[in-house]
């Protein structure tokens, strides 16, 4: 028994051959439905949380043992909520593509509401001034992508794996796409 017969590929192809135009059109439409609802959920979350990236995957060990590589964080970024010391923020630094997840350890807020703060990773020995853009001493509100509100372990390891091995990603995606397109309910 070959792999093809175990997976019953011929039967699936037979399914496809037996489909008429209307049915295959329906398959394509349901595939488009899956893609667009995923997009809708993501964009909807952006609106609800106020964050440009409501779910992030932890990519470094700088917050260990709280967060490990591959853990998932849920963010909010409400403008009216003040930043306070001890909060875990996700921020972007000019010249770095990847946002950083670290804790606020120092904060100065003026009367008009302008606030500057300094961050540090729990697992790092020094604060983040070395990570900021050259000459940058503080973060401000506009640097924040979100503040961590919820935590889910391990789940994000899939995306890390896929990003490290793009071939696996495309293989999985195309297998799923073929399955959705060919499989008859």
């Amino acid at each position, binding site marked *: 028994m070959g792999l093809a017969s*175990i*997976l*019953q590929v011929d039967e699936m192809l037979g399914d496809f051959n037996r489909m008429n135009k209307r049915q295959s059109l329906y398959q394509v439409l349901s595939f488009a439905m899956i893609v667009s609802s995923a997009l809708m959920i993501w964009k909807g979350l952006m609106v609800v949380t106020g964050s440009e990236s409501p779910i992030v995957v932890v990519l470094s060990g700088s917050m260990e*043992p*709280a*967060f490990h590589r591959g853990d998932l964080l849920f963010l909010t970024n409400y403008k009216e909520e003040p930043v*306070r*010391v*001890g*909060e*875990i923020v996700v921020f972007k630094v000019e010249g770095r593509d990847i946002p950083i997840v670290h*804790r606020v*350890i*120092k*904060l*100065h*807020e*003026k*009367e008009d509401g302008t606030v*500057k703060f300094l961050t540090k990773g*729990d697992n790092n020995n020094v*604060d983040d*001034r070395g990570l900021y853009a050259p000459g940058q*001493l503080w973060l401000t509100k506009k640097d924040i992508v979100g503040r*961590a*509100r*919820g*935590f*889910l*372990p391990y789940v994000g390891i899939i995306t890390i794996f896929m990003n490290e091995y793009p071939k696996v990603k495309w293989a999985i995606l195309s297998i799923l796409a073929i399955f959705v397109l060919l499989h008859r309910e």
Partner: protein
Amino acid sequence: MHTVLTRGNATVAYSLSVLAGLTFCCFISTVFLDYRTDANIKTVRVLVKNVPDYGASRQKHDLGYVTFDLETNLTNIFNWNVKQLFLYLTAEYETAANQLNQVVLWDKIILRGDNAVLDFKNMNTKYYFWDDGNGLKDNKNVTLSLSWNIIPNAGLLPSVRSTGKHIFKFPSEYASSI
């Protein structure tokens, strides 16, 4: 007759949904708990110096020097959905330049299973107490408080401030920098 693929798919899907359900139960069982506790904080030595802050602006800023006593029992905070506590001691004060200043002076990670009964005497701070200017000298109202950020196995990440706090003032003279 079911194929290997459908059987495998059903098994994986079922185990994943059981795992998701259990995780959700773990989250919902602890989400309404009250994690507040008392803490006893006291300052022992308080000094203020005026020295150049080479880490930031290179100008002379006020640098506070504080040693403290800390006593608290956090054993009751731990439950099956608390993986770690991140303790931090915050100094909060007002200056002419800034309405609110918060500086973390000390922090500690307590994992589940670690000793959560703390009794520290005459501790040095872990981080420098730099002001963003010269607002520490003669500052009459600096509040020290202990907070903890709860890291769960899965769920929310609440920060809780202890009920006990300590208010102290800085001396009106700079200590000679040595």
